[in-house]
């Protein structure tokens, strides 16, 4: 399993999760966990995904999210879960 975190932040709108999830599905990226909240009008979503089923590498998946970033005008970051594990688990 190659776990990554996708964080999506920006002004709330309709269909954010749907758009991101659809793109991930096209890339055969499996969603393991989602949490989402609205803080002061700001939409914050964190998705933990498994990249190991995707036919392309990390960079290509990240680039494939680019059109969604532009369309939704939201900050979308993808990073490997290793950094969170390293920092918060001994």
């Amino acid at each position, binding site marked *: 399993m190659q776990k990554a975190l996708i964080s999506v932040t920006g002004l709330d709108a309709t269909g954010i999760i749907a758009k991101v999830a659809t793109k991930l599905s096209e890339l055969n990226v499996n969603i393991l*966990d989602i949490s989402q909240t609205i803080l002061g009008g700001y939409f914050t979503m964190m998705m933990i995904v498994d990249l190991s089923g995707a036919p392309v590498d990390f*960079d290509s998946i990240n680039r494939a999210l680019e059109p969604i970033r532009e369309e939704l005008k939201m900050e979308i*970051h993808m*990073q*490997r*879960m290793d*950094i969170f594990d390293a920092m918060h688990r001994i």
Partner: protein
Amino acid sequence: MIETGEILQTLRMIQEEHFDVRTITLGINLLDCSDRDPEICARRVYDKICRTARDLVPVGERIEAELGIPIVNKRISVTPVSLICQGDPRPIALALDRAASEMGVNFLGGYSALMHKGATLADERLLASIPEVLSGTERLCASVNVASTRAGINMNAVREMGQIIRETAERTAEKDGLGCAKLVVFANAVEDNPFMAGAFCGVGEPECAINVGVSGPGVVKRALEEVKGQPFDVVAETVKRTAFKITRVGQLVAREASQRLNIPFGIVDLSLAPTPARGDSVAHILEEMGLESTGAPGTTAALALLNDAVKKGGVMASNHVGGLSGAFIPVSEDIGMIEAAGKGSLTLEKLEAMTCVCSVGLDMIAVPGDTSASTISGIIADEAAIGMVNNKTTAVRIIPAVGKKAGDRVEFGGLLGFAPVMPVNTFGNEEFIARGGRIPAPLHSLRN
């Protein structure tokens, strides 16, 4: 499973608190490049660096993208050039600068001489070439070790370095003495330091090694905001916890880089390295502990606590720790230090005291343009004495600001920042510096 709060904390550290990995530095042994003909040696040096470091920057950038953590610098350190040059070192300097540019690294360290006990002919040639080399190259950094706890202080080298720093400042006067920002004078220099300008690959190092320097003063400052008014036990504990988290990321990056480049992991340098950006200041951590301005009475104690807690927190987070581990207090590269020096709260004398308890020494300090070579040598001797007696690394990176006086400002740009010109004690010391010779190594019993 990692909790949401933990994820948010990491994201906040990176996005708001300037947490980054400051450098991946690739140490490369060049001893096998030596040749009687400097041009042949220079060619070998260039080829070896380009062969070994070819993937350094692209791999660094990939790790940066995948982990979502900025890796600000990718750099190279090499064997001290005085150990490989058998003649004129200048062709090697040019080859190193070209190789650095070709590899896309912003600095390459190792135009260095280790002369704490005395100088070889090669050391002398290298020293004499420093002003010309630092004014004629862009990315090359030089360092000279003039003292050690075991050998004492080489006062001939100290005398020469005063003159060399002056000459380097004059040759780069139109850039506010930028050449001097690339020149460090050390006592007890370490062999695996990833930070510039003092990085070199020591003779005890392997063929090549990955050394990583972490950072994150902003993260520590933010953590301390949560424990306002609480006793120092709590302050120390908070710094330790934060340093642990920061260093774990440094270790992760080092491991990834080592695996992908197929180059052994050397060390993680447990450092708090500031930048001139607001929110990335070591001085502001000290002020968060309750000081109105860095330099106020209590500053040295605050720094001692910070420096120690950073190491204690970091040491468990990494397999191997080394380099200059500790808090850095460069003046021009830290907005809090710049402000404190600007308003007269932080003086050169207080900085000297602070260097007794923290990593390295008098760093990135601009002094008036008319500061004499012997005054600079005196400052180096004092700093070297602190390192020698206390069995620690100390350094001097001082910039005589040609044509400027105390209170004026020098500007280096980028990570090197800007600094107010600080006043210097101008009472004479020419006779002291003219003596030369060696200050004997100190006794390490009867510690009083």
